[in-house]
């Protein structure tokens, strides 16, 4: 926790997402109580916590959708309260856990929505190209003309992943999807309700994109998957930060047991040499 408050820098060198003493009250209840956290670029930052701990609220505030009651959210040291919606949308994208489409559209049209903050009335050739690349990246290029409602839940989520990636795609042609200016990708339980293939696929795609100019913040429910894919962990407990860690193994079993109200046992998987958790009531 100390390192979070240690940066009395003026923000110029400070890449990534920073929450400074963020509190949120709703109807008299304290949902978040002075939460400070730092999410660095090039890492898959994971927010963990039981239901009702404030993860979703934290993400809504970190994305700029909801204003905190007090405190500040900074991207690259700049407060996002000062940013207009469109410029913010060109650098920050959010993959939600379940998105309904009110009417039927072709898959490519849904992905093109990610380019809306970038073009005026008519998409440019570059926007069309990015849509194709984003679809190819998630392996859905052969379904681009298909009506979105005919896809399975897992395929629909791939389409939305392509959409949010297209939204923050690099302006610089072939230098890589996420090169250049700093960008911010938030994932709100992106794999819940999906079968294991799609869960792994989506996290693999995101991991492969990590770069020094992309900050990823994900809310994940499955602790084992979070520990396997994450690089930095913030564990929330009733609106406050219980623990911050760069190494999953640094999180003590007692903390997990207390926060999630379970008994936790660490198991060793000899084939992958990684640790797995087993939980019981």
């Amino acid at each position, binding site marked *: 926790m100390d390192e979070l408050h240690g940066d009395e820098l003026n923000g110029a060198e400070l890449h990534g997402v920073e929450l400074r003493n963020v509190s949120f009250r709703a109807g008299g209840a304290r949902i978040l109580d002075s939460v400070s956290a730092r999410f660095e670029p090039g890492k898959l930052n994971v927010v963990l916590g039981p239901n009702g701990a404030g993860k979703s609220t934290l993400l809504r505030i970190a994305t700029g959708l909801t204003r905190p009651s007090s405190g500040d959210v900074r991207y690259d040291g700049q407060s996002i309260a000062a940013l207009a919606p469109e410029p913010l949308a060109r650098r920050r994208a959010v993959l939600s856990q379940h998105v309904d489409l*009110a009417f039927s559209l*072709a898959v490519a049209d849904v992905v093109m929505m990610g380019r809306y903050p970038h073009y005026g009335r008519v998409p440019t050739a570059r926007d069309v190209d990015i849509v194709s690349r984003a679809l190819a990246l998630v392996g859905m290029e052969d379904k681009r003309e298909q009506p979105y409602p005919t896809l399975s839940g897992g395929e629909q989520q791939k389409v939305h992943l392509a959409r949010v990636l297209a939204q923050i795609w690099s302006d610089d042609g072939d230098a890589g999807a996420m090169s250049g200016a700093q960008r911010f990708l938030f994932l709100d339980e992106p794999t819940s309700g999906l079968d294991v293939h799609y869960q792994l696929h989506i996290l693999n795609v995101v991991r492969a994109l990590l770069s020094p100019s992309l900050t990823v913040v994900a809310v994940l429910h499955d602790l084992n998957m979070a520990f396997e894919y994450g690089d930095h962990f913030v564990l929330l407990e009733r609106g406050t930060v219980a623990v911050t860690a760069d190494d999953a193994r640094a999180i003590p079993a007692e903390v997990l047991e207390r926060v999630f109200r379970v008994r936790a046992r660490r198991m060793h998987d000899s084939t992958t040499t990684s640790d797995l958790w087993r939980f019981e009531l």
Partner: protein
Amino acid sequence: MPVDRRSDAAVHIALALALVAALIASACLGAFTFTPARIASYVAQSAGWIPAREADALGRSVFFQLRLPRVLLAALTGAVLGVSGTLMQGLFRNPIVEPGLAGTSAGAALGASLIFVLGGGAGALAFSAPLGAFAVPVLAFTGAFGATILVYRISSSFGKVNVFTLLLAGIAVNAVCGAGTGFLSYVARDPQARNITFWSLGTFTTADWRGVALVGVCFVVCFTIALGYAKPLNALMLGEDEAAYLGTDPRRLIARLLVVNTVMVAATTAMVGVIAFVGLVVPHVLRMMRSSSYSFLLPGSALLGATMMVVVDIVAREVIPPAELPIGIITAVIGAPVFLWILLREQRKGSPAYYG
């Protein structure tokens, strides 16, 4: 649709040609039948290209003072209702919403009929009320806006619209506004105001150039503004949160488009009464024809709505001559089955649109 704009344009051109054909047919047919050649001659005489013939005076007067404004008002009304249905379905994110169902038209009718109490009655529809020429449209707008906001607030919570509440709120608001309009029209002395059929089923018999001008100006302004919101309306298909993540301000978008929508529906309703189901059928047909993208739907619904209304008006004049059918009877015969069909289909697939 961004992916393939050329076929969007092809559909729009086809619809525009259909509209032109319907306009010509409607200008020719009726109690007085005019051949296209005769209409061309009238136009040339009025423009002074050829000398005006005394024998044509009556025909010219019927054509320019009765037929032409009627044809144009029908087309404008259809365009307004079609675009309004498209906008409202976009804002409510639901395929069953239209101005007739969500209380917009009924609220406009109630507001407009208030003039008979405030303005004393006689000739209010002809803009001679003490409150001035804009009293009717302003009152209609107030009523329409109040009713729409009420239905929207009741049916939407946490950024989602619940269809059951929407329908029930629509029924209640429509009933209250209908009762109010009915009461006022019975109290009124003006024979035209007493015509409850006008308010509940709509008619073009009272069409004049002032009505054409009012509805025309409102439509052009509102439609132009609405066209600029095609992208955010598409984004809103994903819900308010996702639209916000894509850089739009959903609350501002909804507020602005509700005002735009209400202005044109109120002006139209004050001129022709309540005409239901056009706003429901038009976007639905377009979605089946091609796409749900609003860059396609908005121009398409103006063209298809206008065409449909011009054809309905021809039917209204031709079915039981010399009498006329109220417009709403014909639109209900076409629209109600479509409405039920959409409702059944939505129920069967258990779509998010149905459950909110």
